[in-house]
């Protein structure tokens, strides 16, 4: 009975070559996928007979410490299916243009010899303009020649710059880290031109605002290998198996090394399967749970037993000991409000301190008096270096300090502080211990931020007030019993969790971490949810530790070689001050979504204050006027004309030009575009999309995009709500439609954005170009490489923008010859002295102060452009780079390396200066690698040397061992390389150590880039005090009845219908919209992007598994199939982010039989106003770093079953 066949008769086995032949291939090339998945995986692309046949993961990552599991292999089901795209019928092989437009263009070109005149003729004919706008998205594409379309595009560029201003040319491309040169091609062109780059990380709601709030940092997190160092891991709103696919094994492997894993998710999902405990928390209520966890930890580990390690940590690394002034509450005599941090210059000892408004006080145990430690923002930007550090020392006299964390024992009295429990809306009054400080203006009661925490969390410590009697007090915020009604989770669960967490942290020195993601970050109050968890981490000493910290993974924001990259990408090497726009404000205002918004006060709970009462759009106007946020276009006239007018009026120097314009602005002679976004002179006009899906998966409020930007059909039926509620934004009775003159999409596939654009240019894919890729999930830098040349007529993004630059330059010789001054309006900037601009909220637009650029309002910078030299400059690394690079306040000298690039590599002479040539992407890659501290150890050493002077700390040892390290593009092609310790990142990686954020701060005493230089429990910006968010707190999600998504659609609904909260987590079969349209992923799922529903909810609606359903609200409609499962909780539905509306999507019976949309058809954005504040420590703008985010989780929809005969394609 043997089935075994030996090789006795080899002929009978010669057929086995059948499969051996299939395995053969000709070439293997290393590349990766640039898709904002955070994977950054190294792939071997197999080529046979010139055709890419498949991809397999590379396994050759340089090893980490042997005590950590290795990284190999990295890659997922989506990445490994990528090769399908290359030759698929979805591939954009040639340039395409809408027939209506190209007919108009050819006609106009016949009539006008000059392309710019031809474009003008079309734009000046309202009928013609509307005709091609209405045709957007409705078929009728024609293949065209590259040359013809480049000419059209260049004409639109020149016409727009000349007629309206270059800041009407905008571009959207997300997440440079995923293919940084492809991003840089477009941004370099736009910034040389004077155009605008739209942000993405905040727009995607991937930015966690709690990170800048607390740490002054966009996002900084552990690489996934560091999860293995954690001994207690809480996974919150992050489906590791689904979205961190190549990293998930570290979590599994940690479990087998004795780590406890607790998963919080409303649905039983892929990662819940791993959990020791799955906590089926109500959707969006994680903040309430963490508030209660902190209550227990404060009570049991800080009060009942003062855990030495925790107390020491909080003293050194947080604002816990800093003194907060208590302000009498005029409305409630006897009560106080928690006010701002007590400024050092308010007491006699420090009255003359430089930047004294920006230095802060602790109560020093040794001297028994308030004293000022170094490390604050005021020390950072003062003249004398060396005081910006976390040493417990008064830098004015070097005296050692011992901060008093709580005033409880040495209190001079108590004060009742008024607090609001936003869940119930109840005001409560709780006593805190106080001391009195003699200030220059009188005696002021103060307490510490740490003492305020006890009051806020309801840990009474024997003090009077509305403190809960014990943890079982259900009304007492924020007890384990209190959280039950919000989370649906028992108090016993909270107690076990809190005790295990804190005792693990104590036993391991802070090896507890939170892995958190979009499931928590996409809610309106996401900053509070995150902050609640971060406070727990801070109180247990878990931040800045390997195995500890908040590990937020939503979006591949980490571009490791940021300093040289941003120089190239933003054309700073040519002296450009870039125009960088926060997309949430842009789309809210220009996209007219504000018109449908009744304002945040109608659906959120805040303190009652003039600042909190005003409409969100008005707050955005205030934010632009105050220099808190950017806004482009800047003003109704071309900024080229503004500069020219200033020159005509006698301005000679850039400073005089800026002063002239500032005078016109202050006198209200030059209004700001933000005040009237619907006036045609303020519209954005030309829209470039590349590397992204700007019109659907990146278009929250997609139907409003179709309506107001595109001017084509749409399915929104919402009623306008802002009229009469806005005072600072002009109201036009008729909302404009079709603001955009031209939409150009660079794409390798016919996605929804391509389908709706005017022009689609065939872009090379990730196996067809040279590029660089980094991520925060690991610490390697990866190449993209060309396994084949760009297929058919496609070109790389870098080369396409180079070609656009060339043609635009050519047309400029006639229309915009010679040097031009452009006046660029920019907001106050993080990591600069602008962080000390404003101590109070004042609006010069309302006469509350004078407009002083850079102080009370935006800065004005003159940029010298030459439109005839766009192409030359694009291709040369300009002399600005030689002068040095800077990032995060750290400066790097690079002149010798710049000269070496010019001498050893290709070079080019521009304006008489010999520059390194970067016209081809591999050259640009080498320039980045040669000048980045992360890939050139000498530059890292120089950066640490700079930081040594700034901090007075010894730091260069961190790069000493890597000083000789250099990496080139070809090195990366042979093997991924690990980054070097860098002063612009906060984690340390030497010796195979895994990266964990803020270990540099905790181990070496470098301050965080915040007000006090410490991690902040307390946020004392007046806007935060007004919004009741100065202390960590809980706010419930906006209710659907008032949020404004359901009014008309609920009235129109017939038959069985339910209101469900629509959750759109990242999915299993796509990365955003990419891969979701491949045959492979569709086959492994349901052939569509279904809606997941609870079985009981479905039964109520008569919906069975795989039935068609219509999902709708006032914003739009989606028609898809249902998946029915008890794993989804009731009252919630899920549509995984992000379907295309191009794949088998039927028409909507409820919207008159028009084609139904995608998940972004069902939402529109609301902005959270306190996230707009600026000019104040860590609350100071930086692109993708700070500002309101594009929240979308609070959306509700109506769901109904469709009969099969209602389904029409």
């Amino acid at each position, binding site marked *: 009975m043997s089935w075994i066949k030996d090789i006795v008769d080899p002929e009978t086995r010669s057929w086995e070559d059948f499969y051996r032949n299939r395995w053969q291939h000709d070439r293997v090339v290393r590349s990766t996928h640039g898709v904002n998945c955070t994977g950054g995986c190294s792939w071997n692309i197999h080529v046979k007979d010139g055709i890419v046949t498949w991809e397999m993961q590379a396994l050759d990552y340089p090893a980490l410490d042997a005590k950590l599991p290795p990284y190999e292999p990295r890659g997922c089901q989506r990445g490994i299916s990528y090769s399908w795209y290359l030759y698929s019928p979805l591939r954009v092989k040639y340039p395409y243009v809408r027939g209506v437009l190209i007919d108009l263009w050819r006609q106009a070109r016949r009539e006008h010899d000059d392309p710019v005149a031809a474009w003008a003729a079309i734009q000046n004919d309202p009928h013609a303009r509307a005709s091609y706008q209405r045709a957007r998205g409705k078929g009728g594409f024609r293949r065209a020649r590259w040359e013809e379309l480049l000419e059209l595009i260049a004409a639109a560029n020149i016409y727009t710059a000349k007629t309206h201003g270059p800041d009407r040319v905008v571009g959207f491309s997300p997440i440079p880290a995923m293919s940084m040169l492809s991003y840089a091609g477009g941004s370099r062109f736009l910034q040389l031109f004077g155009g605008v780059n739209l942000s993405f990380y905040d727009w995607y709601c991937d930015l966690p605002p709690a990170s800048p709030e607390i740490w002054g940092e966009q996002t900084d997190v552990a690489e996934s290998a560091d999860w293995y160092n954690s001994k207690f891991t809480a996974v919150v709103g992050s489906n590791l198996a689904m979205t961190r696919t190549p990293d998930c094994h570290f979590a599994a492997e940690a*479990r087998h090394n004795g780590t406890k894993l607790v998963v919080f998710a409303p649905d039983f999902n892929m990662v819940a399967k791993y959990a020791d405990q799955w906590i089926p928390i109500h959707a969006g209520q994680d903040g309430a749970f963490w508030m209660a966890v902190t209550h227990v930890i404060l009570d049991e580990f800080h009060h009942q037993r003062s855990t030495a390690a925790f107390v020491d940590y909080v003293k050194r690394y947080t604002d816990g000991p800093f003194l907060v002034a208590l302000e009498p509450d005029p409305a409630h005599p006897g009560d106080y409000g928690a006010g701002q941090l007590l400024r050092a210059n308010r007491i006699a000892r420090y009255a003359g301190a430089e930047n004294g408004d920006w230095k802060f006080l602790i109560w020093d145990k040794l001297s028994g008096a308030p004293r000022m430690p170094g490390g604050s923002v005021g020390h950072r930007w003062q003249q004398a270096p060396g005081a910006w550090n976390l040493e417990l020392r008064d830098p004015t006299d070097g005296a050692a300090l011992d901060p008093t964390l709580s005033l409880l024992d040495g209190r001079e009295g108590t004060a009742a502080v008024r607090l609001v429990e936003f869940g119930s809306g109840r005001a409560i009054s709780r006593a805190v211990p106080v001391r009195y400080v003699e200030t220059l203006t009188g005696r002021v009661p103060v307490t510490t931020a740490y003492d305020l925490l006890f009051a806020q969390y309801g840990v009474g410590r024997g003090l009077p007030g509305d403190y809960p009697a014990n943890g079982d007090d259900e009304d007492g915020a924020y007890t384990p019993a209190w959280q039950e009604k919000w989370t649906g989770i028992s108090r016993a669960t909270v107690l076990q969790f809190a005790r295990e967490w804190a005792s693990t942290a104590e036993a391991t020195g802070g090896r507890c971490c939170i892995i958190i993601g979009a499931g928590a970050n996409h809610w309106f109050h996401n900053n509070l949810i995150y902050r609640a968890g971060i406070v727990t981490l801070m109180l247990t000493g878990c931040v800045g530790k390997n195995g500890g910290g908040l590990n937020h993974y939503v979006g591949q924001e980490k571009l490791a070689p940021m300093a040289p990259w941003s120089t190239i990408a933003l054309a700073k090497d040519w002296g450009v001050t870039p125009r960088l726009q926060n997309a949430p404000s842009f789309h809210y205002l220009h996209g007219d979504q504000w018109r449908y918004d009744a304002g945040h006060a109608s659906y959120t709970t805040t303190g009652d204050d003039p600042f909190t009462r005003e409409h969100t759009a008005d707050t955005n106007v205030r934010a632009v006027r105050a220099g808190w946020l950017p806004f482009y276009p800047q003003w109704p006239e071309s900024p080229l004309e503004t500069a020219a007018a200033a020159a005509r009026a006698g301005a000679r120097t850039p400073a005089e030009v800026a002063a002239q314009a500032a005078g016109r602005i202050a006198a209200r002679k030059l209004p700001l575009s933000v005040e009237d976004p619907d006036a045609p002179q303020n519209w954005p006009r030309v829209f470039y999309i590349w590397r992204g899906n700007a019109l659907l998966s990146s278009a929250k409020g997609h139907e409003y995009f179709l309506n107001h930007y595109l001017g084509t059909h749409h399915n929104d039926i919402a009623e306008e709500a802002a009229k009469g509620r806005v005072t600072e934004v002009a109201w036009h009775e008729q909302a404009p439609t079709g603001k955009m003159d031209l939409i150009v999409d660079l794409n390798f596939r016919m996605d929804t954005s391509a389908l709706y654009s005017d022009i689609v240019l065939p872009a090379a894919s990730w196996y067809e170009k040279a590029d660089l890729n980094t991520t925060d999930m690991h610490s390697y830098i990866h190449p993209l490489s060309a396994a084949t040349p760009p297929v058919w007529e496609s070109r790389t993004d870098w080369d396409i923008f180079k070609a656009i630059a060339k043609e635009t330059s050519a047309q400029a010789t006639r229309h915009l010859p010679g040097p031009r001054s452009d006046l660029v309006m920019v907001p106050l900037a993080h990591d600069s002295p602008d962080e000390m601009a404003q101590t109070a909220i004042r609006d010069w637009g309302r006469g509350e102060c004078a407009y002083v650029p850079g102080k009370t309002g935006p800065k004005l910078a003159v940029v010298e452009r030459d439109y005839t030299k766009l192409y030359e400059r694009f291709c040369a690394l300009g002399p600005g780079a030689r002068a040095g690079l800077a990032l995060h306040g750290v400066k790097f000298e690079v002149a010798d390396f710049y000269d070496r690039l010019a001498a050893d590599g290709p070079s080019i002479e521009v304006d008489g200066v010999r520059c390194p040539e970067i016209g081809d992407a591999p050259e640009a890659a080498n320039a980045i690698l040669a000048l980045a501290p992360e890939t050139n150890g000498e530059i890292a050493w120089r950066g640490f040397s700079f930081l040594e002077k700034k901090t007075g700390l010894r730091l260069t040892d961190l790069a000493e061992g890597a000083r000789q390290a250099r990496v080139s593009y070809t090195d990366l092609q042979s093997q991924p390389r690990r980054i070097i310790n860098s002063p612009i990142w906060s984690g340390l990686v030497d010796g195979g150590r895994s990266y964990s954020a803020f270990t540099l701060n905790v181990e070496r005493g470098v301050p965080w880039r915040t007000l006090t230089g410490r991690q902040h429990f307390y946020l004392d910006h007046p806007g935060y005090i007004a919004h009741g968010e100065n202390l960590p707190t809980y706010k419930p999600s906006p209710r659907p009845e008032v949020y404004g998504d359901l009014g008309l659609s609920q009235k129109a609904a017939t038959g069985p219908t339910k209101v469900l909260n629509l959750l759109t987590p990242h999915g299993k079969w796509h990365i955003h919209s990419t891969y979701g349209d491949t*045959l492979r992923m569709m086959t492994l799922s349901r052939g569509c992007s279904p809606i997941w529903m609870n079985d009981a909810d479905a039964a109520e609606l008569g919906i069975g598994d795989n039935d068609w359903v219509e999902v709708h609200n006032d914003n739009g409609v989606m028609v898809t199939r249902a998946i029915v499962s008890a794993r989804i909780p009731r009252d919630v539905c899920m549509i995984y982010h992000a379907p295309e509306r191009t794949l088998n999507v039927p028409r909507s019976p409820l919207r008159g039989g028009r084609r139904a949309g995608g998940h972004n058809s069902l939402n529109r954005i609301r902005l959270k106003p306190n996230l707009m504040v600026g000019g104040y420590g860590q609350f100071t703008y930086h692109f993708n770093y700070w500002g309101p985010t594009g929240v979308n989780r609070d959306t509700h929809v109506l769901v109904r079953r469709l009969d099969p005969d209602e389904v029409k394609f």
Partner: protein
Amino acid sequence: MNIRSQVSMVFHLDKCIGCHTCSVACKNVWTDRKGAEYMWWNNVETKPGTGYPSAWEDQREYQGGWDVSSGRLRLRSTGQLRGLANIFHNPRLPVIDDYYEPWTYRYDELFSAPASDDQPIARAVSLITGEPIDIEAGPNWDDDLGGSPIYAANDPNLEALTPAQRAQMFEIERLVFFYLPRICNHCSNPACVAACPSGALYKRGEDGIVVLNQERCRAWRHCVTSCPYKKTYFNWANGKSEKCILCYPRLESGQAPACFHSCVGRIRYLGIVLYDADQIESAASAPEDQLIDAQLRMILDPRDPEVAAAARAAGIDQSVIDAACRSPVLHFVKDWKMALPLHAEFRTLPMLFYVPPLLPVLGNRDGDSYDASTPNLFGAIDDARLPIEYMARLFAAGNAGKVRAALKKMMAVRYYRRQETVGDIGAERVASLLAEAGTSREEAEAIYRLTSLPTFEERFVIPPAHREEAIEALEGPLEFKGATGFGIIRTPERGP
């Protein structure tokens, strides 16, 4: 003793993330062509669930594998004597509805659609008929669908549970799912080989890989019927059946199979096991509750000098014997008894093994709130959401003790490592947990290292084949060196 060498795999299901990367890796290389669209040599199933093809485990329906009648093994599908008589009658063959009708989309219409008053789309169309299709089945239709009243509830393994236990599967306190990746089991007693009237299937002597000769296959499809795992597929375009080849072209050159290579959960281990082919019949005929033990007896310990000597005598290369001694499969299967075969009761002696998963503890409702608290740090295995009886149906022919022992050991290792790295368990408690699990600190350390820290080379311990010896049987390797790849002078060519 008739010693044979077998390439064998362990799937550590506790680490499986259900990503399906393995499935796509396999499909890209082997079944990305006409007639093979629906072939998923590697697939991943959500359990509880019905799998692919639908309800494949239900042998009352499919009649795959073997049964024992009067102490003799017989194929359930035909029986060896009835085989010839019924050669034209194959009533238990899965039909397309048990798989799915493959489809694509008219993507090109997004480019070519004429101007109209609404947005064009790419319609779904059948890959068989080219006509628009209503998609109602797929190869992974019940993915993540634990808790589906339709799919999970129709899992044949749920018969092991009481009605009350079954009802709870759809309650929040107990709802659960996990993943089961499946390829051909490269059985020692393969029903597909036994059933083939053409003798097209065989088990390779040097590595135990079961292959299907593409020249000899005559489309009888009895392999499809008789394989209880439904891991042979009929190619409707060229009329040949095909199956997983364990990537022998890669293995022969020292590379891991594509599914293994791409396993991003790092759940897979590949190693050599030596076994005694003389025991196949007795092991496959053992009573159900002894099937696991019988198969373990059949697998030999290569570190035993007598076994090694016998293996050498049987012509097994020293490199293979050396690799067998370092085999991660040997450790998980024979040394630690943590990895178990899938559905041993099918009696094909599957040579791939699964470490069963730990699962989150069940919860309790406490009034309006859900209580997830547990009396100890990691919860107890008997409080896991999925009853052990279910897992025993999958991995131990119903012998729950085998599954419990594996899970207990895994949990003891976790507590041991907790004590080593945090120190909050207590040395005495750890010692007693290890003793109860029948393990030692040394073994626990080894289990931990191979579970958490293995490098690729520690998970993949297969020596490259001596292909020069195989080739030499046909032609001189030097001649081969000069001529290989010239398809025109070699047959068969590159493929149909």
